[in-house]
């Protein structure tokens, strides 16, 4: 590190502990307590990146979260690297590796910088205007734009770090640990309020912490000394929790806030291991006090973006806090008093201050007088018209301002410098306030937006509320906090505060140059590279709304959300358009305040915790038997069971044939099961299903179709009457939760008079389904005591039975059209029953089959799958299931909708069967169906919903929904595909065993 850029200053950093780090591959040294930015500056590195569009060299500008340029990539591990981090916020640690972003091949030699010489050709919205034509060239353009403009690299492997989420409730949350926040937190905690104080820095105190100046004194001490004592007293407050390195990310309604705590980011590489990296606090606060302070504005003038041009207050922090000189010959440029504090600090530390260029007429506040006393030269009523130096500023050109400030006059003075501090006044950080829904007011006197009306229990205090003078900050913070918390703290009465008062204010949003506007480069948004000229061009092109101008010019749309120069953009727009800024309004600040890494947002919800995985009791058996699984909602369902090297098609063909030829076994545990009890259970079913239930005998099962109130099919399943007032309803696998909610809704809100109780028992029972001509023989081996005769146990009935003394329910129901049984047994026994059935079925070649075969078998029978053959626009009539609509029932859910003018239309889309002319040709599900091949525009009649090759029929079969399909049986239609057109014929939906003989086979 360049020794001559450091001064001895051990108050905040530890200059005895040297830390090594790498920047752009080069090993450098800093001290414990440095940020990456302060360490780079101490190494005389200003150039840290290239601008987005013109690839101009850009340097460190600030010292906090508002930094627009020093955006770096941290780490080079494929799983841990993090793009878009601000060097000004990275605390230096042993082993840190960082590199510049947005430059290629290197920050010192950047190919994209050629854009800078072409910049007259790259005006506002250049990318929009140029690369949109011809549109098919976009793919090509995109590659080059991404390569030359990309902001950082994403990690390519999963993040190995651990992140955490926690909830926190408090009476008072104070955001910001500067002088106002400290006062507010102390008042709150001293009055027995459970208080949380957070600050994004590693230490409390804000900028007052290093404000050691004769002009700012409290009770005869320097303001920083007084504050240090205040911070000491916080430690004894039991009700106060302090969280440093914690930044508030979002402020939502009802005082729900998200804060990100950095836990290990500042630790050495080997200390980070196995620790939680960041924690997201989900805070619910009764009251919120925002004390987020303000940030310094830049000034907008020609070539104001060169490395070495920095915010004046940041230069002050680098010298007073880190002991780093940002240059050896520093000039300052200001429109307000605060640059003089910087000048005095620099002078006190032995740094040569060339001069202060001040756009104001001579003023004589105490701080200005102090600077003059130190012999610092001041150019009054002057502006900088140009800066020079490509990779680092080397001189400035100064001219006098005309009386109206619109032009420059007189002789040009050139002044050598290696750093320029700029100060355009202060912008209150109102971001959190607006995030929370608060409305802003504009104060014309110093051009600031201030918190106005809010619906939440909150206040803003200190400079984020527009108080910039030390005495006002303290007085108003105390009064506001007392009033807000309804307490009467008198710790701060009778304080003697000395504060330099700013007497003269002046503001020019866009400073004039001796060159005409088109020839200058006054940058507004340093990260997105837009200039004041771009904004003016947008206005000339007719944009009026601030939100439109923002998007068109991309001003304020980079990762810093335009923190620095949003105000100037607004100012220039207002001025050009001739409206008042208060009327123009401001753009919306959205959370997060500073970018959050995805890991923090998701916390522990990664990997297997990302979503619940539901497994059936037989899951292990399926794994052992090589099942391939498919996800059905949260469930893992066996899809098919390949044998040897079978592919899916081969396995499904084999399974489907075996189930019809002899026996198949299916895990049906995932079907939703709802236990329904109560004296009105039958009436309830009458109301929610389309068919009648009152006459269903005990011990019998019935298929039911459930509609939405709009008449569209919602769910289906078999319900069994277990006893007089007790039913077991089954639902589709995916619909289970929604059906239960819907039924509960009706019971609670429409029919509270019904005596009905619903309990979800999906997870309580496992279901083994055995089907095929030999299923009866298999079941008689498993449950020998059960009379399986058709007379005693016919299709659509149920029996209680015992297997190894364990109670189970056996339903004789069928989704395949085969003779079939479903055994429902407590989940813990389901696997053993499954194995029992499998063993018993071995002599019949019992074949486990998965969901794909189940779908194929039911399609052969024309049974629908809700959600596959229906899509929320199909009535039972559309599905050709008129038989299931009770004519006798006065009402049921959806009934009235079945004869609305639209639902009785005869040419609605209806479910039909489709056969391909070529029986080997299997249609694609989702394929469109048309009447004429060559008609333009082509009329689409409908689409294929289910399609399979049936091994039992030895041909391709499909279900489809087709406009007016019911009347089109036998009609030839076409399915146009990418390379060919397939000829099809409309048929009945039942392809196999129309007489249902197999059910009793």
């Amino acid at each position, binding site marked *: 590190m360049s020794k001559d850029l450091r001064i001895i200053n051990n108050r905040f950093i530890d200059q005895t502990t040297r830390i090594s780090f790498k920047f752009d591959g080069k090993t450098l040294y800093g001290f414990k307590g440095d940020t990456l930015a302060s360490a780079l500056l101490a190494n005389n590195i200003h150039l840290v990146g290239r601008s987005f569009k013109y690839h101009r060299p850009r340097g460190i500008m600030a010292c906090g979260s508002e930094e627009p340029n020093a955006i770096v990539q941290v780490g080079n591990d494929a799983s841990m690297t993090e793009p878009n981090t601000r060097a000004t916020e990275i605390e230096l640690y042993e082993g840190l590796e960082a590199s510049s972003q947005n430059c290629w091949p290197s920050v010192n030699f950047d190919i994209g910088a050629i854009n800078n010489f072409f910049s007259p050709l790259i005006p506002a919205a250049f990318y929009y205007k140029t690369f949109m034509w011809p549109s098919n060239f976009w793919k090509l353009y995109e590659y080059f734009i991404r390569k030359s403009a990309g902001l950082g690299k994403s990690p390519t492997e999963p993040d190995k770090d651990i992140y955490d989420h926690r909830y926190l409730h408090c009476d008072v949350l104070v955001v910001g640990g500067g002088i106002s926040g400290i006062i507010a937190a102390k008042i709150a905690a001293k009055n027995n309020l459970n208080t949380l104080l957070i600050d994004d820095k590693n230490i409390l105190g804000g900028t007052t912490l290093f404000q050691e100046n004769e002009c700012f004194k409290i009770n005869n001490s320097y303001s920083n000394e007084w504050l240090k004592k205040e911070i000491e007293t916080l430690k004894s407050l039991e009700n106060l929790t302090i969280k440093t390195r914690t930044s508030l990310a979002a402020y939502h309604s*009802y005082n729900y806030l998200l804060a990100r705590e950095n836990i290990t980011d500042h630790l050495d590489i080997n200390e980070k291991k196995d620790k939680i990296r960041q924690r997201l606090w989900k805070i619910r606060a009764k009251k919120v006090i925002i004390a987020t302070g303000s940030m310094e504005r830049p000034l907008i003038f020609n070539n104001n973006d060169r490395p070495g041009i920095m915010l004046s207050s940041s230069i002050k922090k680098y010298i007073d806090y880190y002991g780093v000189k940002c240059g050896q010959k520093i000039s300052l440029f200001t429109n307000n008093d605060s640059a003089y504090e910087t000048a005095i600090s620099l002078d006190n530390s032995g740094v040569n201050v060339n001069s202060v260029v001040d756009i104001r007429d001579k003023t004589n506040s105490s701080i200005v007088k102090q600077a003059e006393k130190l012999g610092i030269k001041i150019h009054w009523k002057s502006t900088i018209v140009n800066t020079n130096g490509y990779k680092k500023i080397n001189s400035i050109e100064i001219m006098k301002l005309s009386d109206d400030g619109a032009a420059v006059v007189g002789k040009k003075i050139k002044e050598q410098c290696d750093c320029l501090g700029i100060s355009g006044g202060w912008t209150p950080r109102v971001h959190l306030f607006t995030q929370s829904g608060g409305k802003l007011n504009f104060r014309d006197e110093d051009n600031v937006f201030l918190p106005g009306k809010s619906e939440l229990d909150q206040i803003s205090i200190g400079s984020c509320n527009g108080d910039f003078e030390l005495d006002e900050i303290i007085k108003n913070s105390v009064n506001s906090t007392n009033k807000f918390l309804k307490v009467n703290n008198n710790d701060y009465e009778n304080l003697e505060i000395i504060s330099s008062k700013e007497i003269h204010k002046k503001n020019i949003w866009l400073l004039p140059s001796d060159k005409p506007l088109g020839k200058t480069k006054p940058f507004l948004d340093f990260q997105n590279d837009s200039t004041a000229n771009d904004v003016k061009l947008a206005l000339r092109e007719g944009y009026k709304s601030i939100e439109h101008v923002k998007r068109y010019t991309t001003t304020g749309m980079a990762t810093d959300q335009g923190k620095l120069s949003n105000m100037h953009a607004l100012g220039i727009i207002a001025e050009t358009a001739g409206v008042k800024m208060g009327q123009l309004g401001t753009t919306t600040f959205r959370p997060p305040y500073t970018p959050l890494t995805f890991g923090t947002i998701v916390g522990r919800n990664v990997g297997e915790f990302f979503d619940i995985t539901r497994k059936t009791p037989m899951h292990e058996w399926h794994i052992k038997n090589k099942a391939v699984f498919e996800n059905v909602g949260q469930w893992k369902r066996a899809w098919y069971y390949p044998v040897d090297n079978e592919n899916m098609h081969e396995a499904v063909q084999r399974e489907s044939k075996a189930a019809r030829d002899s026996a198949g076994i299916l895990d049906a545990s995932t079907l939703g099961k709802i236990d329904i009890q109560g004296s009105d259970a039958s009436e309830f079913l009458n109301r929610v299903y389309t068919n009648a239930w009152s006459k269903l005998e005990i011990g019998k099962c019935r298929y039911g179709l459930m509609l939405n109130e709009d008449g569209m099919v919602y769910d289906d399943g078999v319900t069994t009457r277990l006893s007089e007032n007790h039913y077991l309803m089954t639902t589709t696998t995916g619909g289970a939760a929604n059906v239960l909610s819907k039924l509960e809704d009706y019971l609670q809100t*429409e029919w509270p008079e019904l005596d009905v109780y619903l309990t979800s028992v999906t997870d309580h029972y496992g279901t083994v389904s055995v089907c095929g001509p030999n299923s009866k023989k298999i079941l008689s081996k498993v449950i020998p005591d059960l009379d399986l005769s058709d007379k005693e146990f016919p299709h659509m009935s149920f029996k209680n039975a015992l297997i190894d003394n364990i109670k189970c329910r056996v339903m004789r129901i069928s989704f395949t059209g085969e003779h079939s049984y479903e055994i429902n047994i407590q989940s813990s026994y389901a696997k053993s029953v499954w194995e029992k059935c499998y063993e018993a079925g071995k002599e019949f070649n019992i074949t486990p089959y998965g969901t794909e075969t189940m779908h194929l078998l039911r399609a052969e029978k024309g049974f629908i799958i809700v959600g596959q053959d229906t899509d929320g626009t199909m009535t039972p009539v559309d599905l050709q299931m008129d038989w299931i609509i009770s004519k006798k029932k006065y009402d049921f859910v959806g009934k009235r909708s079945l004869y*609305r003018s639209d639902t009785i239309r005869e040419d609605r889309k209806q479910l039909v069967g489709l056969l391909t002319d070529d029986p080997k040709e299997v249609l694609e599900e989702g394929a469109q169906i048309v009447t004429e091949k060559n008609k333009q525009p082509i009329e689409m009649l409908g689409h294929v919903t289910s399609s399979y090759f049936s091994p039992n029929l030895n041909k391709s079969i499909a279900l489809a929904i087709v406009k007016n399909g019911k009347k089109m049986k036998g009609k030839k239609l076409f399915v146009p595909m990418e390379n060919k057109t397939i000829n099809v014929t409309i048929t009945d939906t039942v392809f196999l065993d129309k007489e249902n003989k197999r059910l009793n086979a």
Partner: protein
Amino acid sequence: MFLINCPYCGERDQSEFSAGGEAHIVRPKQPTELSDDQWAEYLFMRKNIKGVQFERWNHAHGCRKWFNMVRDTSNDKIHAVYKIGEKPPIN
């Protein structure tokens, strides 16, 4: 994120609840006697007010009870919660 005072459980996070649209739309007792227009009024027409609105909410990840809420949609202020069947405490 709202803090919702479930009439059965007390204050809970919004993430435990699901919203169920406009409240006090009673399912007609005799749908068959309604014209298409009258039925459509029940089925489809919702007010979607900017301002004070009466809404149905369900404590889905809690007691699973439905209840009603008076909420100002312009600022998300919840003025009241009350049980199904009860009269709104505010008009």
